[in-house]
């Protein structure tokens, strides 16, 4: 596996979960490299390890074996506070159930990652406006999540994920709770942000509509990579993408 210039590298990653007196292996010696600007889908049946892999890349979980490198930094060697800082600065999350803070307006939700980063109020206002503009929700900035549709909520979640200009956006089943219309809009939005801002998108999905727009699809089965497919006909594939060749 060529990991030169890789933004994200999973090297021989294993994740097991204890269950009674045995252990369940969610990921089994997975290796993967993702370059800056990729638009990558992790697909597979339920229980195949999609979410586990995303959690490990997002540094919200630790591998049982192997290493996850973000920008060349071995995340397993980081202290909890450094890990937290890495997530804060380099990663944006989009969740299946949106996970917006219900007492905040759309704009305040988008502002939250900037607050955590300690960015000043004038800069925050500017970036929030930009992010909401990017997702087409400027007019809904002062609405609370319960007054927004599912599609709008997910777009707010996307705005929140990109507002602090992360290098990677991780999305766990982002279209699972959306109807076809909203799902298509979200897919188009993510692809547009990928192209225009050069953001790296890594997402898990079952959704064929989303997969049709995805230039690279990693398929997992029983915690192993079954295939890693590239489609050069789909826009957004970096010229020098990586292939999975097994464990280093």
């Amino acid at each position, binding site marked *: 596996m060529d990991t030169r210039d890789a933004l994200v590298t999973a090297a021989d990653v294993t994740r097991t979960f204890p269950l009674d007196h045995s252990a369940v292996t969610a990921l089994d010696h997975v290796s993967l490299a993702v370059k800056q600007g990729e638009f990558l889908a992790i697909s597979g049946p339920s229980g195949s390890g999609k979410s586990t892999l995303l*959690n490990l890349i*997002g540094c*919200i*979980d630790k591998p049982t074996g192997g290493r996850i490198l973000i920008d060349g930094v071995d995340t397993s060697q980081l202290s*909890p*506070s450094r890990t*937290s*800082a*890495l*997530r*804060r*600065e380099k*990663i944006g*999350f989009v*969740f299946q*159930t949106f*996970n917006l*803070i*219900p*007492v*905040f307006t759309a704009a*305040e939700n988008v*502002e*939250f*990652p900037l*607050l*955590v*980063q300690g960015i000043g109020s004038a800069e925050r206002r500017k970036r929030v406006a930009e992010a909401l503009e990017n997702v087409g929700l400027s007019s809904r900035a002062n609405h609370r999540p319960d007054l927004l549709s599912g599609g709008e909520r997910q777009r707010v979640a996307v705005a*929140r994920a990109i507002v602090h200009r992360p290098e990677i956006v991780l999305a766990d089943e982002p279209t699972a709770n959306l109807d076809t219309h909203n799902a298509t809009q979200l897919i188009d939005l993510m692809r547009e942000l990928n192209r225009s801002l050069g953001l790296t998108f890594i997402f898990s999905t079952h959704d064929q509509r989303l997969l049709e727009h995805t230039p690279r699809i990693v398929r997992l089965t029983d915690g192993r990579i079954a295939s890693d497919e590239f489609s050069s006909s789909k826009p957004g594939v970096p010229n020098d993408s990586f292939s999975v060749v097994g464990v280093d």
Partner: protein
Amino acid sequence: MGKFLLLAFRNVFRNRRRTAMTLLMVGGGVAALLLGGGYFRFMSQGLRESTIRNGLGHLQIFTAEHFKRDEIHVLDTGIENWRRVASVANAAPHVRGIAPRIEFYGMVSNGQKSSVYMGSAVDPAAESGLGFNPNVVEGTNFTSNSKADVQALVGTGLAKSMNVKVGDGLTLLAVTSDGALNGVDVQVTGIVRTGIADLDARYMRITLDSAQRLLESDRVTNLVVGLDSTANTDAAYDALLPRLRGLGQEMTMKKWLDLATYYKQVRGMFDGIFLFMGVIVFFMVLMASVNTLLMAMFERTREIGTMLAMGTPRAWIIGLFMAEATVLGVLGAALGVTAGNLLGMALNASGLHLPPPPGYTTPIAFRVLHIPGIMIGSSVMVVVSLAMASILPAVRASRLQIVEALSHV
């Protein structure tokens, strides 16, 4: 920081019914402390002033000998040149007047029955000048136009025991300063109530002149000093003490608080009850709030997981929960202070009276004083209590495993 506090404030009102219940509990606790503390303060202030006005005065001057040994004969430790001492004391700042007193005891007889009495001899004009007027329930106080040689005011219990009424005669017996037995016939001009049943059963008051004749002495037991205000007691004490030197006898002085044993006991009891109330309210608020905040934490597990996933420092999560608890505490305290004061005003306006407590003979007015110190103290206490209650949920929330929290249903 502003947005962070805004989040805490809005979170408080996410579950309005639960917040309302918590505020009612916190506010109720504060209001209870205000009412209880305000009532106890009224009682102790009332007792303090009545203790002083009933004749204790603010300061009392004695000879130093009075506290060094027991009297062998009556008044042998008394103040000899008391008029001069009174004159010197009267010139001190804050002093409103001086009342000489003789405390004595002996036997009283109605011709058929005898009993022990506790005598208090006073100068009626000086007493009246200081507002030390006995509570005469029948007859009159000492009058200058009385035809009686020796006037006497008798406690209600003693009057009943001796079966006398106003106008009847009694004979007082006492040991003189020489150790001889002497007697004097008195006429009951009034029946008085001190408010304390045990004292009413033995109380006998005659004039200073009569007592000096009975005891065959020119001395007095002590000089009672009345001040312009109870608050000036310490200042007057400090000003008076040097003036009492070089007056023949070595003199000493006691503040009203040193002599008001009963007041101190009652005050101690009130303080104890109030402290107990405070402890109960503190733990009531603490326990109920821990439960409320833990429920809030469980309900928001996924949200906390999301915040942690976005890189929110765990200390922020602790701070958020503590801020929410503090907001709840401040709102609860404000509610409690408002409700406590309004309830206090309503109770004061109602003219409510409580039955006399043990040892008392008169009903006690139910009044609540509005004490800023208690308002501040009880408010701080509930805020601290809530902040403490938030520690466990806050730490638990901050220690959530992000992946587990995100999959929480």
